[in-house]
């Protein structure tokens, strides 16, 4: 470019710049502290509008009262003092959305935390959005394969479902969610992992693991850490689902994991009490149910006429000493389409994932299972239910009649088979064949302790000699010939 053209370009740029004097509406800070501020003025201010404080700090209006406006501050507030001028921005709180969010670690405002380049986009999605209505929805019909045998067989999750993961601390709730993300590789799923109020070290470990397994190629991590203000913890899930909605609007399938919503409820309680909203049960404000219902209702499966796409939600709730009757757990249980219960007892007995299959349910996922899985899972559920009833008698094995004894032994083997190490999700066809084998008694002759090793051998045998069969199963095919082929394979394996 010659100097002349540069000058021309600059002139053009400057002349196209419109000189305009803006009238800005302002208010004054009355009081500030605990990451909230109360202001006078701001006459025409809207609820949920962003406000600009001095020093580039932003706030969000939550309370509109007769004389004052209450707002939460999103970031550093130590420099704000009484009498400071606050400006309206006229914008509702929103996050930047773009395709290149994938693989990034961001905070609930869309600012990057992983040291990479800024997210450049002109598109913004509001954090609060009305959930899709009845006419735009469709029933859940496609599976989300978690790669965890027990869940895919007995508590199946479908695309667009909301399945709660609930349990005490240290029972493997996050592990379950991370395994599910890892298993989405090549399944046309975009994952959003929202970490709320967690230790930064734990988040760093998770991100490292996701990178190691290649899961970051289709995952966004939204982080509001334990050291972030309560306002960010409160907003994080909405930011995550807003990013998810951007991809759903492109007709894609999205998996949102909120880890965990009890911490979000704590953050919201803190904010509400500071804003002097009246406390209710357990000091939560009156609208704490709406806090979670409006979030989880945004998970949906949209029909073709409205662009398709889905958001599957896996909220996580941490219970205290197994108490699922506390306020927040009961609320979220009633909102979701089912729950996965994880128990400390089972965890320490070595049953990992520590899934209580008796009380875990999935209310809509059954329709989404592939046919072969549906066929083998029915029998598995029945065997497990019988086993649970008889389990108490297992101690006096010698006095039992052969039928009962057989059921107990089958149950023990199934329990053993459903154990699965962390970070090792299993493809669905492999799940189907091992469940088929244990269901039909092919593993009965092995000792319970050997089951894990036998399973491994069986899988390598099957993938070596019956790869076409496995492929058919993974595509959801199931008929008598496939079943007889599978039977033949099992018999051949037993003989070895």
């Amino acid at each position: 470019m010659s100097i002349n053209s540069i000058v021309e370009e600059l002139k053009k740029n400057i002349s196209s710049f419109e000189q305009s004097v803006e009238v800005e509406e302002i208010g004054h800070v009355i009081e500030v502290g605990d990451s909230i501020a109360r202001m006078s003025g701001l006459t025409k201010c809207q609820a949920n509008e962003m406000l600009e404080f001095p020093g580039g700090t932003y706030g969000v209006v939550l309370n509109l009262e007769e004389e004052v406006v209450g707002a939460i501050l999103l970031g550093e507030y130590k420099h704000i003092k009484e009498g400071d001028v606050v400006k309206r921005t006229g914008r509702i709180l929103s996050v930047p959305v773009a395709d290149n969010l994938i693989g990034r670690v961001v905070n609930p405002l869309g600012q990057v935390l992983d040291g990479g380049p800024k997210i450049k986009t002109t598109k913004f999605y509001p954090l609060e959005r009305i959930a899709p209505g009845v006419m735009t929805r469709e029933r859940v019909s496609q599976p989300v394969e978690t790669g965890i045998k027990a869940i895919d067989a007995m508590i199946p999750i479908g695309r667009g479902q909301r399945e709660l993961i609930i349990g005490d601390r240290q029972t493997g709730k996050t592990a379950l969610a991370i395994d599910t993300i890892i298993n989405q590789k090549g399944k046309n799923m975009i994952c959003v992992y929202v970490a709320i109020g967690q230790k930064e070290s734990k988040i760093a470990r998770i991100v490292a693991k996701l990178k190691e397994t290649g899961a970051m190629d289709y995952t966004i991590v939204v982080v509001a850490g334990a050291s972030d203000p309560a306002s960010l913890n409160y907003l994080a899930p909405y930011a995550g689902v807003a990013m998810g909605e951007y991809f759903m609007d492109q007709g894609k399938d999205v998996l949102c994991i909120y880890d965990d919503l009890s911490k979000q409820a704590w953050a919201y309680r803190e904010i509400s009490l500071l804003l002097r909203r009246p406390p209710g049960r357990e000091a939560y404000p009156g609208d704490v149910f709406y806090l979670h219902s409006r979030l989880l209702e945004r998970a949906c499966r949209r029909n073709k006429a409205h662009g398709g796409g889905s958001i599957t939600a896996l909220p996580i709730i941490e219970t205290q000493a197994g108490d699922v009757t506390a306020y927040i757990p009961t609320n979220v249980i009633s909102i979701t389409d089912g729950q996965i219960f994880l128990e400390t007892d089972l965890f320490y007995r070595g049953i990992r994932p520590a899934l209580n299959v008796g009380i875990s349910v999935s209310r809509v996922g059954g329709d989404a299972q592939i046919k072969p899985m549906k066929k083998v899972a029915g029998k598995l559920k029945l065997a497990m239910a019988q086993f649970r009833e008889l389990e108490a008698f297992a101690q006096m094995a010698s006095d039992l009649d052969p039928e009962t004894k057989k059921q107990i032994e089958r149950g023990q083997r199934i329990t053993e088979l459903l154990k699965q190490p962390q970070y090792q999700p299993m493809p669905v066809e492999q799940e189907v064949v091992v469940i088929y084998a244990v269901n039909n008694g092919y593993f009965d002759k092995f000792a319970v302790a050997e089951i894990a090793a036998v399973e491994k051998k069986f899988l390598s045998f099957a993938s070596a000699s019956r790869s076409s069969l496995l492929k058919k199963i993974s595509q959801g095919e199931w008929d008598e010939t496939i079943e007889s082929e599978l039977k033949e394979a099992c018999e051949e394996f037993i003989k070895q």
Partner: protein
Amino acid sequence: MAKGKSNKFYAKILLETVKDLKPAQIKIAVKNFATFLIKENKVKKIDQIIEEFERYAKSSEGIQEVKITLAKKGDLKTVEKIKNSLAGKIEETIIIDESILGGFILQTDDKIIDASLKTQLLNLKQSFN
């Protein structure tokens, strides 16, 4: 953070009570108001309440308080022009701030009209990004 009514609220009360009273009655009313403030535990806030009262009384008489920020002293022409363009009675405070470079900033109770050179330049800078 004591829960309670804002200073504006007390200022309003005072104005409403003294509005149509004779001077002798006003004296009593003000005394009563002082006792009321003591009762409400608001004596500490008396300065702000008075300030609020002054502003409120002026605005109810149609006088508007404005702050005008200028870059240089003695730019009386600009001040006069601004005052003429505003409706109603104006009571202005002039602040000199060299950092705005030129132009003026007009601030009323809940609005800012920023016509400073500094902001214009910042906007220009932003339009290049």
